[in-house]
């Protein structure tokens, strides 16, 4: 069970409850394909088709890249935890960093009509996922929770 300390604005997970799938990686971009491989299987378990799976892969890649680039200032030796749970048709991924929590209101995309490199990550994450939540975790960093529900097949 995940609890939120409203007063401190922190989210923490009951340590007695294991996430279904968890892994820890260092913040090196070379591990992005590995993250996608795990996420892809999770999305398929949740019942997503190719298109839905690809959307999740895009969102997760963007989110992890943001952690590396912004939370860790491109340091490649920092810790990122991933906690995946699948309760079909719901896919949920927590991306946990140990950097300094940033107020989500300060995380914004560039206007799409400004054609310039960069600034698209947050827009892509919010466009492709059903729910995007940034919360301060008990390590002082950020837990980003991404949730997407696979559409039901009509019978």
């Amino acid at each position: 069970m995940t609890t939120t300390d409203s007063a401190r604005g922190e989210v923490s997970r009951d340590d007695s409850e294991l996430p279904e799938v968890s892994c820890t990686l260092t913040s090196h971009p070379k591990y992005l394909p590995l993250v996608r491989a795990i996420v892809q299987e999770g999305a398929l378990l949740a019942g997503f088709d190719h298109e839905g799976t690809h959307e999740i892969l895009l969102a997760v890649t963007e989110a992890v890249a943001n952690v590396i680039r912004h939370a860790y200032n491109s340091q490649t030796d920092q810790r990122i935890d991933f906690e995946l749970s699948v309760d079909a048709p719901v896919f949920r991924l927590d991306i946990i960093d140990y950097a300094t929590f940033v107020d989500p209101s300060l995380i914004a995309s560039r206007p799409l009509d400004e054609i310039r490199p960069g600034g698209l990550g947050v827009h892509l994450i919010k466009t492709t996922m059903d729910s995007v939540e940034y919360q301060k975790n008990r390590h002082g960093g950020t837990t980003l929770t991404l949730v997407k529900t696979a559409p039901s097949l009509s019978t």
Partner: protein
Amino acid sequence: MKVTQEVRGSATLFVVEGQVDMHTSPELRTHLRDALGAEASPLVVDLSSVGFIDSSGLATLIEALQAVGKYGGKLRLCGLAPDVRKLFDLAQLSTIFDLRDSQDDAMAD
């Protein structure tokens, strides 16, 4: 990711294979930068073997588009798979880039 480059007539063709993300997009940028430095035109980037591209890949292509525009050159992208095309649509870049269905189309004058 793998990038192969060849010159055909006046065109410089880059065939990109694999996944383009934060880890691999710098390599693509390096390839493009060399051709941009020589003011080559048109530049054709064949993405038909790219199964995944993220915003860092888009950033690389936007940089190239802006650079080629400075010397009046042309940049064409071809062979976008539906997933890749969707990313361009989400980023509202489909009308900004010259997107072609095939390499032949992109290489034609």
